[in-house]
């Protein structure tokens, strides 16, 4: 199973947020880090897809007033999700190495 480009970014965001990964937080992270502003629908759609693929698990949290009393759904990266991210990254690196003159230093 392959990850789509957007899915990969969402997965990275979920991972980087740790315990606080829910819809709005993920959206804001993506906005800050990537300068992207995905619609909430696209984001939820991707999150459900990732859940189906087994890359994330979800758990419902408490209700808060700033959400009109609606509960948050917190996502968490699974071991499989981590493997998927590693694979995707590896694939990209291997491919990138074959490109002459590409600076791959991570610093």
């Amino acid at each position, binding site marked *: 199973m392959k990850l789509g480009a957007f899915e990969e970014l969402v997965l990275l965001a979920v991972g980087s947020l740790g315990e606080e990964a829910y819809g*709005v937080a993920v959206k804001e992270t993506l906005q800050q880090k990537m300068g992207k502003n995905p*619609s*909430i629908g696209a984001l*939820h759609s991707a999150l*459900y897809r990732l859940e189906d693929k087994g890359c994330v698990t979800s758990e419902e949290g408490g209700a808060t007033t*700033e*959400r*009109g009393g*609606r509960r948050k759904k917190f996502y968490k990266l699974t071991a499989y999700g981590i493997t998927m991210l590693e694979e995707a990254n590896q694939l990209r690196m291997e491919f990138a190495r074959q490109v002459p003159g590409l600076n791959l230093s991570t610093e």
Partner: protein
Amino acid sequence: MSNRKIHPPRLADRFLKWFCSDEVLETLQGDLYELYYKGRERHGKLWADYYFITGVIGACRPFAFRKIKHRSNSNIFIMYNNYLKIAWRNLVRHKAYSVLNIAGLAVGMACSILILLWVQLELSYDKFNANSSDIYRIVVDAGNGFKAATNPAGMPEGLAAEIPEVKSFVRLFYSGESLMEVGDTKFEEKRLYLADSNFLEVFTYPLIEGDRKTALAEPNNILVTQSMAKKYFGNEPPLGKILRVCNSENLVVSGVLADVASNSHLQFDFIVPMSNIARTNNDLKSKTWDNFEFYSYLQFQRGAIKNEADHLRLEKEVNRIYAERITSMVLDFHLQPLADIHLKSDYQIDIAERGNIQYVNSMFVIAIFILVVACINFMNLATARSARRAKEVGIRKVVGAKKAQLVWQFLTEAVLISLISLVFAVGLVYAFLPVFNNLADKQLSFYFLDGKFLGSLVALAFLTGLLSGSYPSLFLSSFKPIRVLYGRDRQGKGGHVFRNSLVVVQLVISVLLIVGAGVTRSQLSFLRMKNLGFDQSNLLYMPFKGEIWKKQEVLRDELSQAQATSDYTFISHLPANLTTGTVEIGWEGKDPDVQYVVPNIRVDENFFEVFKVEVIKGRAFSRDFPTDKSNYIINERMAEITGYDPENIVGKPLSYFDNPGVILGVVKNFNFKPLQYAIEPMVLQYSEYGQLAVIRTPMEGTDAVIKRLQAINEELNPAFPLSYNFVGKDLENQYKGEQQMGYIFNLFAVLAIMISCLGLYGLSAFVAEQATKQIGIRKVLGANLPSLVSLLSKDFLKLVLVALCISIPTSWYVMDSWLEDFAYRVDIKWWIFVGAGVGVITITLLTVSYQVIKAALMNPVTSLRSE
């Protein structure tokens, strides 16, 4: 920080709610709200509204509609498990109610299954024939109520020659009883027919041995059924064996037929080719078109008769061809479909064992009635006991059960109970099938392993379950949790009106069935007791056979010699089911347009005395007047039709079969046909030779007469065993069909009433239980037993009265239209209704009283102790 006045655009919000599944909505809406509030603070209302709306529209994609399936799936399975478990616990816990419920449903279903088996058999007549849809029988309506199933011998061939759609034709001829002999095995056989040689090609009766095409090729062939082969030849191979028929002819067995299925209108044991009598039978030799002695079947080309228009066109064609040949009679021929012969035939001179579509329909209605009564029991008990389930319903609703789920729960329960009942019902049917077969004189069979049959049984159980569960499930599932859990509310009182109307329906059906049974019974006994115009008791008859034909004078001497047999007469036909008749009758001033089929009986001079038929004008036949042989005695009806002056009718001219004579006398009307028919005109002729001897046996002297006849037969006619019968018995047999229906009707009436009683019993138990405290308090305050009993029974009595008001006019109407079919009928007596009313009231009170008295006798200490 946000307050309630700040709200995202409501239309978009509502749209979101509409398209999102519950699972998705919570978090998606939460995220949208959070973004909205944040955005509004930072950028203002307009910006936030815009982003909310686009956000909602952007979320309208497949993920939002989905439901999380795996979870709800297992839920349904678990819930059904739970439903069944609860249903089972309820059944086991309340054993008495369960028994009432299951017994009622089982008996009801068993009745319906039996009746439906019977209905199915009646409707299946002759459909096993592969050519069934192409075969039509020619029947004729001669006007004035005379319709016959017979045909002239030459007609089918003539029709086949002129109508191209006719593929082939088969004629049958019934030759009466025949003596069959193989060695010492000797029997009189009644079920022998002569048939054209293509009989087996048109009718697909299975042939077990022999060749279909050639089995009837030779004049001395004979086909026998399997059981007849066994009767005459034991275990030896029957093919090629010799059967001696009527002590005059040896026939060779050329084929063995399977025993004729009971759902065939033709019932035969032997078939002899028509060529056997073609040399001697005048009708066959002359190919007559005006003597009606044969039964003719036309097989049309497949697809030639597609609709009613084709059918009518061909009937018209038949009538046209006949009218071209024969101008002396005006007849209306019909083509009767093979499958209609059993149920829809009202033709006289028929060979078919006659069914009655009316009986089939009414039995079908009764089956439905009985099932409905059983279902009503179930509904009543379930709703009456709803208080017991009210808490369960309340709790289920509180933990989140929806109404639809509760409806399913109670339907599941009802179906479970009706499936359990089905098992018992099948057992009952199995046990009572032989009894029912005996009663209905049918061969119903019951194969468990037939998939279609099993399927329809299960379908019946489901139908019953759904029907009987429908109301209780709607009723129970609509309870309000707050009210039922609060405690004091008596939910059992709800549905009061509906429940009462169900009881009324049950009682109405019971009364209908009781009145039906009563009226059929009195009509049947009326038919049996009806004065036929002659005295039918102690009349013994002996049909002539073999040598006797030639020795009639000797027989006369022999009979006269003994005191026991001296009261005898020789006649040509019994006045039981007279099937002859001719239109060739004339008198002075006869209207040429009027046509009557008038039968005749040839009698000797003793007839009037032996049968006790009264001569009211003129005189009886006498040996002293040789000219009597060419003159006539007529009945009152005939006298009316001639229009002769009643005072001077003796001596007026009359011709019968073109033999002119005069009227010697008039006899009082007597019945010579079954009582469905009114008395028709008839003519008596004088002859010393008859076809049978009728002897009025002295009281207590029947044995002596039989012994004497035995001796005479031994002496005059040693080749044939003596055969005799009683006129009274023959007459009784004419109403066998009605009698059987009467028995069956009685049986099911009783069963339906029993089932209603079960329901009433259950209901009264419930009412008594509910009133326990009330009764306790009343007793403490000094009420006595009678007043308590009347208090509790009063409601039931009201229901009975309402039911009587509805059912009496209905039953009167229904039974009156049944009686219309009889020319002689009883009036429906008022006391039948009184009887039915008193009966139903008594049965109801008896059923109810046990529980009521039990409740009224209870010690108030026990009933009031606990609260």
